[in-house]
């Protein structure tokens, strides 16, 4: 039932890519508009909402609270 190995998630060497099947169906949670995958920055950009959603260890964080506003410089 328990999974002792789970707690320490895979350690990263290169940032793992996002599953392409997931990228295909993701939209901006606020506008439901399209997203641009900025591979270099590891962000999913919604031009309509003016937000960039971070991707952490291959996991898209599709929460407006966690997104970077496009009119602010990236800090990470």
């Amino acid at each position, binding site marked *: 039932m328990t999974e002792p190995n*789970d707690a320490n998630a895979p350690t990263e060497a290169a940032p793992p890519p996002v599953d392409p*099947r997931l990228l295909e169906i993701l939209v901006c*949670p606020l506008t439901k508009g399209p997203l641009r995958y900025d591979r270099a920055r590891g962000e999913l950009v919604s031009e309509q909402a003016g937000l960039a959603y971070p991707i952490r260890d*291959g*996991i898209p964080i*599709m*929460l407006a609270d966690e997104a970077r506003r496009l009119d602010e410089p990236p800090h990470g």
Partner: protein
Amino acid sequence: MDGSLGPFDRATHRLRRDRAAASVHEAEPILAETAARLLDRLDDTTRHFERALDLGGRHGLVARALRERGIPFVVSADLSPAMVRRAAAHGPALAADEEALPFAPASFDLVVSNLSLHWVNDLPGALVQIRRVLKPDGLFLASLWGLGTLAPLREALLAAEEEMTGGVSPRVSPFPDLRDCAGLLQRAGFALPVADADTLTLAYASPFGLFADLRRLGETNAVAARSRRPLPRAVLAAACARLCPGDELRLPFVVATLTGWAPHESQPKPLAPGSAQARLASALGVTEQRAGEAPLAPPPPLR
């Protein structure tokens, strides 16, 4: 801080889930029991599913079960990035808010949500969004705590707090009524909506076992109107004494199960009003009478 509308403080609930991520597997028997009951419903249908979403799936228990059932593409989503980090070890995962789903229309043919939607402020809005991410004839299956869950705890806390401090504050979530759930499914545009409830009785040696499980599930108090001051220890002790006078605490959990299908023309549905091809009166062999009007002649004698 929490300018959110509705009964729940979602930012706090997210923190509760983040904090629970490391120990959620210790409360897995509860999640596994409700998940098993929920997924049993899949055996009732002959449909074969290809693309599934585990919504509010914490560390991905339901997603794993769906993969074991042979569904090739299963996505884990949870409000807590820390929870989905664990789910991501087994397959595609993302952090997402049930109130603002980040999926294109018709992305899935199955959406399952195990014990999560009772924390949503805008349940009607969430259900509409779930229906939209389903393909036509896609299935939505959800379990959530219903009215009656933790009722003895709520009563014990209210009574103890009132008695000792002269005031009360909400410490247990409001849970939805089953009838409301069925109505919401229908209003959200689901076909063949069904809501039913089942009671799961959990036994604990003391109330502290219950509190530990609630913490591990990320289910501790995130009611927006809650008191920000910690519960005085003496009040907690009095509430525990009321709740559990003997040496075992048995608590009912009401598990509401919601089922609905994204509409499709193949599904049975009522005919549109006025579309009948024959009169009911002729089928019954009687004289038709207009509604709301007094009969023109006395009714025929019974034979």
